[in-house]
């Protein structure tokens, strides 16, 4: 089974999150831009697990997920100068690249929606359970994951569901409405309200800006 019940939705006591490894990440990116393969190797060790996790989750294929990992870091290698710290941290930028690669792959598949919708397993944001962590994983990343999962757990399930279908399955709102049989207006409202609520929660906990 590819999907694992890995994430935890149990609300936590919230305090200011730990500071991200901004300086280390940005220093690594700068080194990569100058052709330092050791810096790229360090970034790979830090984020390859996250990239592989999301790719495997979205594509439901070990082999394709491995290709996404390679392609993600190849892009980092060739386009590191395009990184803009003002628009988010390195992990957001790097995982954003991986997400786009997965969406591109999903949209090449005609039956991309079936993968999620036909699954009997609980979906991503509803399947959050405490899982094991690699000893090599950054503490910041691990704690950030818990905070975001906690925020997601506070969104109504139907709103979390449409966000998941859009983000992980690459479906548009019309496609979600078509596949779920619900009104398009209802889907739009859930997307809008769900993301606004998530924005407010994340801002309140200083995970993102306001």
């Amino acid at each position, binding site marked *: 089974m590819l999907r694992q019940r890995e994430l935890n939705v149990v609300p936590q006591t919230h305090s200011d999150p730990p500071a991200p490894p901004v300086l280390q990440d940005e220093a690594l990116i700068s080194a990569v831009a100058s052709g330092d393969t050791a810096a790229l*190797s360090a970034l790979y060790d830090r984020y390859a697990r996250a990239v592989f996790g999301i790719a495997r989750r979205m594509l439901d294929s070990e082999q394709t997920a491995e290709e996404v990992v390679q392609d993600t870091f190849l892009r980092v290698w060739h386009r590191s100068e395009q990184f803009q710290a003002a628009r988010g941290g390195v992990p957001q930028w790097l995982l954003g690249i991986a997400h786009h690669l997965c969406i591109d792959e999903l949209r090449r598949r005609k039956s991309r929606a079936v993968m999620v919708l036909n699954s009997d397993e609980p979906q991503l944001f509803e399947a959050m359970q405490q899982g094991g962590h690699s000893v090599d994983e950054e503490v910041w990343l691990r704690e950030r994951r818990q905070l975001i999962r906690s925020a997601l757990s506070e969104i109504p399930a139907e709103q979390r569901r449409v966000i998941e279908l859009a983000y992980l399955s690459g479906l548009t709102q019309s496609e979600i409405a078509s596949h779920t049989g619900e009104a398009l207006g209802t889907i739009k409202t859930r997307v809008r309200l769900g993301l606004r609520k998530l924005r407010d929660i*994340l801002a309140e906990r200083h995970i993102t800006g306001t």
Partner: protein
Amino acid sequence: MTDWHDLIPAYALGALDPDETIQIEQHLRVDASLRAELDRFRAVVNTLPLAIEPAGPPARVKAALFAKIAASAVQPEAAYASRALLRPRQRWAVGLGGAFVAALLVIALLSSALYSANTQLQQAKATNQQILQQVAAAQEQATAAAQTIGDLQRAQQQIRAELASARTNEQRLAASLIASTAELQTINAQIEVNQDTLVFLAATDLATRPLLASVGDRNAQGSMFMRPGRADAVVLVRGLPQLDQSQTYQFWLAQGGQQVNAGTLIIDPDGTGRLLLKAPASVDTFTQAMVTVERNASVSLPSTRVVLQGSLS
């Protein structure tokens, strides 16, 4: 009216349909507040992958990655572009020499530009020909329209003339009708008088009194036909010349010193005349009758020009 801010969350999530995506991107180009809103929601969306449980890829993935990077150190773009998953359509171009590709590109661009210019020239010629044909057709139409307008003006003038002639004829006919109507009324009145006269003259109790010419009018004579006890009577005369329009023959009845104007005698061209009169009292009460020449028919006393006279006793 669409509130574009409502679409920003779905756009950041990549969930808008293509038409909505086009619209929101047009507004994003000109609306800084929308762009700021988009940045906030993108930050939210970018946190989502952090929630997914990581998993360690096989070690061979990293080895293959760095092998490709090492290969790309020789041909960096070729190594990167050879990825089948991400850029399958660019694979053909990697092995071509740069100069050859550049030359092909220049030739292709020049050929494309020449073909485009020639196509535009042909299109311009065709368009010009179409415009000339349209101008010629418009001129023909204008000439035909001018002829039609001339024809219509001439027809209008003819209709006006015919209408004026018809009005003149109508007026003439109306006048003629009035004259005919008056003449018919006169004839009817005369017929009625004649009928009354004939009825009167056919009575069995009819009495006749002669009217004799005065001195100087020997050819004139007449008769008055009367019936006892009645106020009406008939006068017939002959040998009287027609008078000009300023004079009339008036018939008078007299009793003692009183004269009564009893009517006007109508004289035909042959000198004959008649009068069906209605006296104010029975004609038996009058002793004298006479015909005089007067200036008008409404006089109350007879003149001295007596042309016929007779006794009624």
